[in-house]
């Protein structure tokens, strides 16, 4: 167990490598109850969210989710989130644990004069992520009423033992799968029932250390590592989050447009070591020759790719595939090559 943002979290059950590979090959079940759940509801909720998020919320149909970010006025990333439209005038925002309270306060301030109310359900809701090529089959055993057309980023209402909850076809591993958000009273029961339903398909409980490696292999950014207020979606190579054409203005829009004209100085890259190497840990400088040209934001050993991998920000001029950089550990230099992102792409999606 580990502690994070006031939560006790399961870090590893058996072995990180075994857990990672079980998600890639079969399925894994994660407790993600630390994630924050904010509910926004009101007749003007779509318009208000369009003024607060860089994404086009008007275009998001009911029953669908969209990855988005909270930006400050400089375009810096305060948080990343999934916004689900669960009813025409009701949205579920799934945000990071460490930023939940700040996000809730920020929305409450911005919505002070709006007809939209915000409720932080994080203490009352739990979350599970069922991920891997076998995930949907396992889920359907438990919830046979799931619609046939349960598309990616769809969210549907489900019910178990008389209590309602939400199931979304999303995840943070680079594999197909689902995330479940439910009243905490259902948590233990759902966990046990899913593990039983998946036993014959190779489902196993997985900790958050495996989840961190899985998301790193899939080059999914982590708040506090790749994403921070010092970085914008442009440096993070996630400009697709921003809808430049929508009419609504949103925090950071002008700053981002200006930065887009000039081009960012730094760029987020993914890399892999050429030979056995120690994990390139967050904060390690990245060097071209003797010059520091960037910094690692996340790194570790990938059991799937059987190599030390990482992500980091480097000078934009060097951020091209095939560039060789090095990092130093205990006086020894290790060489990495910049690779296309994602480092791992599932064939099962």
């Amino acid at each position, binding site marked *: 167990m580990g502690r994070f943002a006031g939560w006790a979290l399961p870090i*590893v059950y058996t*072995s*990180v*490598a075994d857990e990672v590979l079980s998600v890639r090959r079969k399925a894994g079940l994660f407790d993600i109850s630390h994630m924050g759940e904010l509910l926004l509801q009101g007749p003007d909720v779509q318009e208000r969210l369009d003024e607060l998020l860089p994404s086009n919320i008007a275009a998001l149909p009911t029953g669908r989710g969209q990855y988005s970010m909270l930006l400050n006025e400089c375009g810096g990333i305060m948080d990343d989130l999934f916004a689900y439209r669960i009813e025409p005038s009701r949205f579920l925002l799934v945000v990071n644990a460490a930023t939940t309270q700040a996000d809730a306060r920020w929305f409450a301030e911005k919505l002070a004069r709006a007809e939209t109310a915000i409720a932080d359900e994080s203490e009352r809701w739990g979350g599970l992520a069922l991920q891997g090529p076998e995930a949907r089959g396992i889920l359907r055993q438990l919830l046979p009423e799931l619609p046939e057309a349960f598309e990616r980023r769809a969210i549907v209402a489900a019910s178990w033992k008389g209590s309602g909850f939400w199931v979304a076809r999303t995840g943070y591993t680079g594999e197909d799968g689902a995330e479940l958000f439910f009243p905490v009273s259902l948590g233990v029961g759902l966990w046990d029932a899913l593990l039983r339903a998946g036993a014959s398909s190779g489902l196993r409980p997985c900790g958050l*250390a495996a989840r961190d*490696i899985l998301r790193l292999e899939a080059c999914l950014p982590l708040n506090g590592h790749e994403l921070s207020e010092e970085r914008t979606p442009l440096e993070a190579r996630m400009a697709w989050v921003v809808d430049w054409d929508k009419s609504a203005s949103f925090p950071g829009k002008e700053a981002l447009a200006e930065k887009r004209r000039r081009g960012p100085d730094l760029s987020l890259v993914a890399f892999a070591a050429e030979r*056995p*190497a*120690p*994990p390139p840990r967050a904060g390690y400088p990245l060097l071209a020759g003797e010059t520091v040209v960037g910094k690692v934001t996340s790194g*570790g*050993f990938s059991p799937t790719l059987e190599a*030390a991998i990482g992500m980091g920000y480097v000078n934009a001029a060097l951020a091209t595939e095939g560039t060789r950089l090095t990092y130093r*550990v*205990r006086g*020894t230099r290790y060489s990495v090559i910049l690779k296309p992102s994602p480092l791992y792409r599932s064939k099962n999606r």
Partner: protein
Amino acid sequence: MNIPTDRFYSQSHEWLLLVGGIGVVGVTDYAQRELSDIVFVELPAIGTHVRRGEAVATIESVKAASDIYAPATGEVREVNTALTQNPGLINTDPYGQGWLFRIDVEDPGETERLESPEAYAKLTASATGSGA
């Protein structure tokens, strides 16, 4: 917890197995469990003279980098090169295929400064409570 009775143990969780005058060195089952997934090992150069208690190798796990201390004084004669490609051998077989290096032990009397299997069992049992 597996603690073979044919070798000596250090309080920092290395083992030393004497075969003739050569000492084989590794880390214990307790250590590999505490470290969890081992992903990289840095071993001393052959011919290096190491002193008992000196940090001579590094094991990197998913969590962190940990120093490995020489349990005896002597010259490094051989290192386990299989660990370069497969450091997980330390997790799966800490007392066998997961050995780290062999040293020419200068003074076999140094083993008196190490723990017996029984004493090491007590040491790790009190560190974990249940021994799990």
